[in-house]
């Protein structure tokens, strides 16, 4: 009886307004995002017939297994290369003069403005057998026959690393600029060599940034579609492209839905696993 009396006190006016403002985007997300995702989930166990036969293909179908392995391999390699290059750029950004930092930052951000499609085609033009890089190398006499830089994994990775770099640089930069600038000099004063000061002080302190950037890049990399489709030239097929083929050409919607669900689940699992070691929310907020 008295329990009813102490039920939820009415929220203050201002707070109610916030809730109203939140409803609209939530409705939008629910209608156009959550419902289709659920639809895909359902489809993966109902099409062409009810059951887990689609998921059995994960183990049984060699084509599916090859695509998944390619995706994981390219995703992991891309993440590793992007992190190394991004770390160097972020380190330079933090330690350079404010003027140069502005210029560098502008260059980093500028790549956001160019469509991923245009960038992929630009890389094809640069990397193909008669492209700028091969003709320059041959002109200099460094190689006799053109290198195979495109329509294979190398090409896909070059394109993906290029696309992902800003996504690695910005969180790394945010993390590194939060590191106390007196710590490395302090380490040096206590007798550490420059390499030791970096390995024992700067690197461990930038680890949260490195992990955060790694999660972002890996998640993006697993779902890449346009870049591998164009730079892979149909030979290197990643899961997103494979799904697209199943839907628009072979019309195996059940298989496509299963792969999409598996991709989503593995990303969520990855985040869940990482969240046991660290505050993922804090990392992604940066």
């Amino acid at each position, binding site marked *: 009886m008295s329990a009813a009396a102490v039920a939820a006190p009415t929220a203050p006016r201002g707070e109610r307004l916030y809730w109203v403002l939140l409803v609209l985007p939530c409705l939008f997300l629910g209608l156009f995002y959550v419902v289709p995702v659920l639809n895909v989930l359902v489809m993966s166990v109902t099409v062409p017939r009810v059951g887990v036969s689609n998921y059995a293909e994960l183990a049984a179908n060699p084509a599916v297994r090859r695509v998944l392995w390619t995706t994981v391999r390219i995703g992991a390699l891309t993440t590793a290369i992007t992190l190394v290059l991004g770390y160097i750029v972020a380190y330079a950004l933090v330690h350079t003069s404010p003027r140069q930092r502005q210029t560098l930052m502008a260059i980093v951000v500028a790549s956001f403005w160019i469509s991923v499609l245009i960038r992929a085609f630009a890389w094809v033009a640069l990397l193909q057998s008669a492209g700028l890089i091969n003709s320059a190398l041959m002109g200099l006499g460094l190689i006799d026959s053109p290198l195979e830089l495109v329509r294979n994994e190398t090409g896909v990775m070059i394109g993906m690393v290029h696309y992902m770099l800003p996504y690695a640089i910005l969180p790394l930069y945010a993390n590194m600029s939060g590191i106390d600038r007196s710590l490395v000099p302090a*380490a040096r004063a206590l007798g550490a060599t420059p390499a030791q000061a970096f390995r024992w002080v700067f690197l461990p302190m930038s680890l949260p940034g490195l992990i955060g950037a790694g999660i972002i890049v890996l998640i993006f990399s697993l779902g890449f579609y346009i870049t591998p489709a164009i730079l892979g030239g149909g030979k290197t097929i990643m899961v997103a492209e494979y799904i697209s083929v199943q839907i628009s050409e072979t019309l195996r919607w059940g298989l496509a839905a299963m792969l999409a669900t598996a991709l989503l689940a593995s990303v969520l699992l990855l985040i869940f696993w990482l969240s046991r070691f660290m505050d993922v929310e804090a990392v992604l907020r940066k």
Partner: protein
Amino acid sequence: MFQGYALFPHLTVNDNVDFPLRTRGIRGADAQRKIDAVLEMAQLGAFARRFPRQLSGGQQQRVALARALVFEPELLLLDEPLSALDRALRKDFQTEFKAIHRKVGTTFIYVTHDQEEALTMSDRIVILDRGRILQSAPPSELYERPATEFVARFLGKSNFLRGRITRVAGEAADLHCAALTSAVSIGQQDVPAIGANAVAALRPEKIKLHQTAAPGGTCSVEGQVVDITYLGSVIDVTLALLDGMTLAATVPAGSITFAEGDTLVASWAADAAILVAPDAERGA
């Protein structure tokens, strides 16, 4: 040692102190023994497993000191290590630093702007002005026999008597100013020529005040009390002399009663005022 403590936030207290040992390749039980000893000395034994952010400012300070001492340096440079602490905590630390200093016997070079800190903590003080060493001496000598006007003004308070030398006799001389003539001791200066301009420093606490012109002699002058500051154990008095010069005196409270506007006689011993090198270039 740094002004901000510059402790490594990702390492425990133990590992922070271990850092300088690690860079020197000292590991294992040998390193741990040194760490334990220095943490014990800094009274941090109970905090070895904590991270710097879990410690108070004073504890962090001690960790920084322990980290600087653990590898037994021959010389330790402390650049205003207490500037971030409040006054009470600073006092505690001065005592603690002195105790630790006695225990380890390492030479500490201690940079500070706090003259009181310099006087209480040092065996020898070096006073620098614009990169030049003005004087290097034990605290008492620095205070009693300052070499230059800057040193006398920097450490404690001082009156400056400016005038002309009228007599020179061995270690002593007479300095004639407009309102008074004082015996001065030559101190560290070259023996001045008669008639030369000179400056003498006179500490306020060396001045005695009298109601009447009793003692006479050269080292006394009459003045009017223009300001009285009561400081508990002592009283700061400012006297205006006849020529417009002012003289600051510090006398024990209760030794003499007077009020603002009274005329008093100030006197001091013949060796109380000491010649100092004037800040020549400073006036320019």
